[in-house]
């Protein structure tokens, strides 16, 4: 009986002493933290995707608190998050639109039953090295595709994506806009710089990155941009420019009318509405009732 009492007393005493030491230490080593830090952390999604350029949500919250980072860098949180953070910091934030990744390549490979290429980029050689896009671009001839700019489809972006939002389908990477948080981790690993951030739900996108001359592009891929400039000429807003044999949309001017998609000879400008709206004039008047087609 006596032994049990001693054991309880000793261990209880030890626990008490350590408890006291710890509570004293917590006073001595007390570090003051700004209560706003916790509030900022609560606003952020907590996904730690790193899209803002900081190690995680905590790192970004601290940088905002110190005034080192701007509000609105969190793609995943979007406008709601930016406004909430601005309210905590007592400043005004501009409206932030959500962005998702877009792979600027249409070279989806389809074959007929004899194995002849119907659409997409031509494969000029078989690659059997590390199944990684960067490694594939380092071999002679800059990889297995005839197109020097297109998606290689070895899935480096798929591996980089923490959210399973980007998958390789028929040889090229495709983004699931519902799953994408816009961290752009995929863009950082793509050796060909194909992936850019766009607003989700955009109808009109130019999905090609080929800066080769038209004839070279055509030899390499059935759906490559040849820089013909038809889209540039039809665009009522002057949103499209052709530089280095490649058409590029300036989204600050684009109003999603979809005219360019109707004229693209290579059908690589994607417009989700194009099939339902056959007449360019109708499409344009839908978006700009007052304007005339050029």
């Amino acid at each position, binding site marked *: 009986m006596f*032994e049990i009492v*001693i*054991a309880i007393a*000793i*261990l209880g005493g*030890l*626990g008490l002493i*350590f408890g006291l*030491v*710890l509570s004293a*230490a*917590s006073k*001595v*080593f*007390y*570090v003051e933290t700004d209560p706003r830090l916790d509030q900022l952390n609560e606003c952020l999604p907590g996904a730690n995707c790193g899209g803002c350029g900081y190690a995680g949500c905590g790192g970004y919250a601290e940088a905002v608190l110190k005034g080192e980072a701007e509000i609105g860098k969190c793609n995943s949180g979007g406008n709601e998050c930016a406004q909430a953070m601005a309210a905590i910091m007592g400043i005004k934030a501009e409206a932030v639109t959500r962005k998702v990744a877009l792979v600027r390549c249409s070279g989806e490979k389809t074959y007929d039953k004899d194995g002849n290429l119907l659409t997409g980029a031509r494969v000029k050689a078989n690659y059997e090295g*590390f*199944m*990684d896009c960067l490694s594939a671009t380092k071999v002679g001839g800059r990889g297995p595709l005839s197109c020097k700019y297109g998606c290689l489809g070895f899935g480096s972006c798929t591996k980089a994506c923490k959210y399973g939002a980007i998958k390789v389908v028929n040889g090229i990477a495709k983004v699931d806009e519902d799953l994408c948080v816009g961290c752009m981790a995929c863009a950082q690993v793509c050796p060909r710089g194909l992936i850019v951030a766009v607003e989700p739900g955009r109808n009109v996108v130019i999905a090609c990155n080929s800066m080769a001359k038209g004839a070279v592009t055509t030899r390499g891929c059935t759906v490559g941009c040849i820089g013909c400039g038809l889209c540039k000429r039809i665009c009522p807003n002057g949103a499209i420019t052709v530089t280095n044999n490649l058409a590029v949309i300036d989204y600050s001017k684009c109003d999603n009318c979809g005219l360019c998609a109707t004229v693209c000879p290579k059908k690589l400008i994607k417009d989700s509405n194009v099939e339902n709206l056959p007449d360019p004039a109708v499409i344009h008047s839908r978006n700009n009732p007052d304007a005339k087609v050029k």
Partner: protein
Amino acid sequence: MEAILGIIIAALLSQNFILVKFYGICPFMGVSKKIDTALGMGMAVTFVMALASAACWVVNEFLLVPLNLGYMQTVAFILVIASIVQVVEMFLKKAVPALYKALGVFLPLITTNCAVLGVVLVNVQEGYNFLISVINGAAGGLGFTLAIVLFASIRARVDKANPPECFQGFPIALITAGLLALAFMGFSGLSIF
């Protein structure tokens, strides 16, 4: 002096806590994806193991042994280790915030690292004196660091390789750990005295 050297060699190689005694496998698998975090974890564990060896020797020698409470060793030592980790955490947060941030969540997790409890219990079982206990703790921690850094560097290479799909991730890591342990078995005959 020779005995001390023997203990250091044993704790580092032939009786390595992870790869020969299989203590502390949890951080060994969990924190070995990157070499720098593995090194940080190793250094923190080394520090805690040395400190815990010292504190537990005092508690054992002056409290438990005189009062015939040897059977309470495990419980008492866990109490000591948990408190030490807490104090170390608070101290680092105040004094070296950079290191505190670098270690992050691994710091409190050292409490549950069984290599720390293991080294303390070994000290008592072998009847080491105060100095030898601390040396054994520090060398054991360095052995832990050696193993985890070696493992992290191998994993960094394995990540770049292309194992069959069913082996990707943890399966190949476990096999790697097994082969590394096998290699360390080669030290088992190593004794200088």
